[in-house]
């Protein structure tokens, strides 16, 4: 097992995107959470997605990570259609697209190291999964990921004894264990204080820059998006209403995204997505 990130700076040609969304749509009953979204994402980008709560940001990320099924449209990865993957292929895709949640979603009662090693469950035979038996190689990989995030000293602590910021960084370590190509972070810093938010955002920026992982991050704080992302996507009512550099994000654009002429994001709390697919899916 060897972490072999694509060499930084090696980018696909502009017209050959890593990820392509074509008319991606998701309806929940009468609400259209994501409405015919088309998007091209190049390898190695770090993209901030902003928008009011309910704009469809979470649904979009969850569809890309194939945690929520699209109602319509397609997702292409290097030109391959991944919209309808099932079974083993679907799990491989989920492993390739690591998800970071607002509420961390670590397993509270397990120690930090085990939580991080869970990032490799997709590659572990069922018998070993049942016995919760991890190899020395997996342990080494996990402690290395933790060490990189400055949390090696917490490896044996129970996950729920850590602070929110630490838990989120453990979640990032777990994501690193997946050796993903794409990291999808859904409001990763929304429950954190500014200092911890910075640590977490720095960690995401670091894996983007050093490992060349493509990062899509939902944010509800505008200035964080501005300072970490060179490309910002604004969503409103399930549509993409802005796509450009932070510099292009003027009052007019903000008005389209947030529906009000202020230069600051409205302070309504981000929607916590309670709806989750059945555990059996």
């Amino acid at each position, binding site marked *: 097992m060897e972490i072999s990130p694509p060499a930084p700076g090696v980018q696909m040609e502009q017209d050959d995107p890593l990820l392509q969304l074509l008319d991606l749509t998701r309806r929940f009953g009468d609400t259209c959470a994501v409405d015919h979204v088309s998007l091209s994402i190049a390898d190695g980008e770090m993209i901030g997605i902003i928008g009011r709560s309910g704009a469809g940001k979470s649904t979009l990320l969850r569809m890309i990570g194939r945690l929520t099924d699209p109602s319509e449209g397609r997702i292409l990865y290097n030109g391959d259609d991944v919209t309808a993957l099932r079974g083993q292929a679907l*799990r491989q895709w989920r492993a390739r697209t690591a*998800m970071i949640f607002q*509420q*961390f*979603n670590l397993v*509270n009662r397990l120690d930090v190291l085990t939580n991080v090693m869970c990032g490799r469950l*997709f590659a572990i035979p069922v018998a070993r999964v049942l016995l919760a038996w991890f190899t020395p190689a997996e342990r080494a990989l996990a402690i290395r990921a933790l060490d990189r995030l400055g949390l090696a000293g917490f490896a044996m602590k129970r996950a729920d004894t850590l602070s929110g910021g630490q838990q989120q960084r453990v979640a990032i370590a777990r994501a690193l264990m997946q050796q993903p190509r794409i990291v999808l972070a859904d409001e990763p810093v929304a429950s954190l204080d500014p200092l911890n938010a910075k640590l977490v955002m720095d960690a995401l920026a670091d894996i983007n820059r050093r490992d060349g992982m493509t990062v899509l991050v939902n944010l509800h704080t505008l200035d964080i998006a501005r300072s970490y992302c060179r490309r910002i996507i604004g969503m409103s009512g399930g549509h993409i209403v802005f796509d450009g550099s932070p510099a292009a994000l003027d009052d007019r654009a903000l008005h389209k995204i947030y529906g009000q002429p202020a230069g600051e994001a409205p302070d309504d709390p981000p929607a916590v997505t309670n709806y989750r697919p*059945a555990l059996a899916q």
Partner: protein
Amino acid sequence: MTATELDIAAERDRFPEVFRGQGWPRRALMAGVIAYLFYLMWLFDFSRVFGGLPKAWTILRLMLDWTGFAGWDHAELWRSMLETIAMAYLGSVLAVVFAAPLGFLGARNLIPGRIFHFVTRRLFDGLRGLDQLIWALVFVRAMGLGPVAGIMAIAVVETGVLAKLFAEAVETIDRGQVDGIGATGGGFVARVRFGVLPQVLPTMIGQTLYTIEANTREATILGLVGAGGIGLRLSERIQINAWDQVAYSIVLILISVAAIDTISRFLRLRLIGEA
């Protein structure tokens, strides 16, 4: 101010709710309930209680007279006591072995499907619907006198009880933690093993320990219908009026139950951090 000075009628007019429920219908009902009680005591010839008191007193005296202590079959009594504990333990462990997978299968959030869910729940209800004593009678008929019948009775009933409790524990878990495992690409087994099990394990351990505890008590009764253990000895000795040994057996039971309770509380504290 005395009652005669009080204008009761006036107060009743102003605060009717204070006087409500004081009327004759209510009093008649109370009288009826009490009369029914006395009728039942007459019906069941309750005076026997008083007629039996001298005899009960004699039994109590015999129970306290342990002068024959050296001559009792201590080996048999102790072995039976250990047999009872072993029955409770083995029956409970068997129950856990069956109840754990059944509990996961019966959890609505893990295995969707109304019909499947309905069937599993009714199965659990069916298993625990009959008392252990009835199951014990059935198994004694099928497998003969002895502890195996008792173990089976405990295993069957507790499988139903534990499966239901386990399923309910699984249904109250935090989905986010399971979602987190699913998002890493973990399959069904991985999600259950790492997302669900850690969350429900403390509950499962606690309930299992409690089951062993409770069944040590229950198993003595099973002995009375021939399903082995100290209960069997107890009924034998009651039949031959060996009240001193009956008392001794009861002491053995009390000590064992207390010991199991203590051990169980200790384990609970060690394993899941709560007593």
